[in-house]
């Protein structure tokens, strides 16, 4: 068993187009959620989201690339560029042959589906661009990262709704820990903020029309975001030998399946995933200082998650901090765990705990320290990142300061 560390991080999301801007926004408790801006938004009843602003594909990517890169791939490539540049790794020879890329996404090229359905159904066209399929496929982003950086080892895409990124990073972690790969590029992305993407979510009636207020008694639903988070997971000795800057260690993970309901969360499933991650990392519950919550801001998730934390941590649940950064960047669905891992890195490395903003009223069913509204300084050693998906598929990652 090898130790696994993170040596590079990159992101694009509603809070910033890189890690530095994103972490600054989290420190300041800034909200990236605002009015949605795209075609036919006036026909939606949900008109807010954590949309990425000012990210122009033109200028970043050439015409040929643009015809192949859906927005979720564009976000991924920008985040991967930042992460791999920070790691300082280049992929040649045996390292290239063994290193790969595992990414999460729930929907893949949703806006490509949307635009082309509009073209053939609404506009009555009978011809679509020849690259529609390679542009919208769920593994497009992972494939383009592999091509751009010469990653020739195990590469694929994981899709488990809101837990996709955590499941993807768990796979990458296992590959590095087992010695199968010296390094893996991993994380996830999502871009569902288009008419069809939001319209589908409206149907469930779980979206908020005004704000994402996790754990607050007056919370009224989730708010969607978009973007990507990408990391370089590297074997510890490999990183140390080349003098790499280590952001934190990934020490364990666990997955569980509720096997119960297609949308309602389960306390037991969530608790088993957290307990499993602690056991895998050989960490006692009382060593955990911070949990980045799944914290969607729905009535059901937040109370279930808090009850699960209380079960797993016992009296220590009242001492640890738990926050939901979805209040700031929205719910990135398949990309959310990746962006949220940044809050764990900030907690471990900088000693700053990202807040849960929009918190207005205590809820007795969420009676934990949710770091309301303002970031907090605290030295912590271990942080967990929770992701609990529709379909009852849960994945929790444990990280440690190094």
């Amino acid at each position, binding site marked *: 068993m090898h130790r696994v560390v993170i040596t590079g991080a990159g992101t694009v999301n509603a809070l910033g187009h890189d890690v530095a801007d994103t972490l600054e926004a989290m420190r300041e408790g800034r909200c990236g959620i605002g009015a949605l801006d795209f075609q036919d938004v006036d026909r939606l*009843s949900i008109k807010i989201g954590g949309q990425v602003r000012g990210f122009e594909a033109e200028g970043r990517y050439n015409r040929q690339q643009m015809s192949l890169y859906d927005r979720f791939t564009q976000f991924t490539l920008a985040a991967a560029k930042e992460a791999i540049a920070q790691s300082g790794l280049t992929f040649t020879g045996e390292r290239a042959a063994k290193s790969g890329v595992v990414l999460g996404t729930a929907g893949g090229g949703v806006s490509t589906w949307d635009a082309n359905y509009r073209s053939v159904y609404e506009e009555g066209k009978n011809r679509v661009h020849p690259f529609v399929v390679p542009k919208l496929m769920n593994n497009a982003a992972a494939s383009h990262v592999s091509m751009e950086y010469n990653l020739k080892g195990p590469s694929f895409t994981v899709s488990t709704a809101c837990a996709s990124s955590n499941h993807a990073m768990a796979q990458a972690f296992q590959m590095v820990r087992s010695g199968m790969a010296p390094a893996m590029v991993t994380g996830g992305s999502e871009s569902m903020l288009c008419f069809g993407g939001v319209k589908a979510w409206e*149907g*469930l*009636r*779980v979206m*908020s*029309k005004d704000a994402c207020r996790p754990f607050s008694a007056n*919370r*009224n*639903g989730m708010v969607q975001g978009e973007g990507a988070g990408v990391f370089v997971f590297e074997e510890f000795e490999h990183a140390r030998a080349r003098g790499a800057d280590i952001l934190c260690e990934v020490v364990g993970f666990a997955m569980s399946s509720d096997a119960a309901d*297609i*949308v*309602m969360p389960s306390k037991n499933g969530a608790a088993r995933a957290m307990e499993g991650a602690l056991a895998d990392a050989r960490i006692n519950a009382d060593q955990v200082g911070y949990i980045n919550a799944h914290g969607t801001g*729905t*009535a*059901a998730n937040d109370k279930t998650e808090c009850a699960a934390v209380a079960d797993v941590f016992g009296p220590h649940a009242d001492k640890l901090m738990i926050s939901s950064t979805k209040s700031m960047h929205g719910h990135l669905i398949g990309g959310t765990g990746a962006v949220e891992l940044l809050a764990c890195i900030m907690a471990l490395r900088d000693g700053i705990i990202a807040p849960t903003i929009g918190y207005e009223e205590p809820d007795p069913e969420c009676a934990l320290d949710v770091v309301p509204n303002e970031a907090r300084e605290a030295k912590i050693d271990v942080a967990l990142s929770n992701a609990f998906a529709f379909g009852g598929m849960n994945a929790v990652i444990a990280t440690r300061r190094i």
Partner: protein
Amino acid sequence: MSVQDKVIEIVAEQAVLEPGDVHLDSTLEDLGIDSLGLVESIFAIEEEFDISVPFNANEPTKSDFDISTVRSIIAGIETLIADQKA
């Protein structure tokens, strides 16, 4: 068909019951309709009457749309039809 009969038909279909087994005093719980079944019923009602029902599953009791019994649901729909068709 009256609004009442149509709503009972929709609710009965969701509950996998005969319309005669759905009473005005029945609650959704009595009928075995869970949160997903409720959201589906509201969708069917919106489609049937071409109205928009203000219902957020996160705060079912805060909505003006009272779902406590079949009777209250019918009354709510009649109000919405009157308001939205006016």
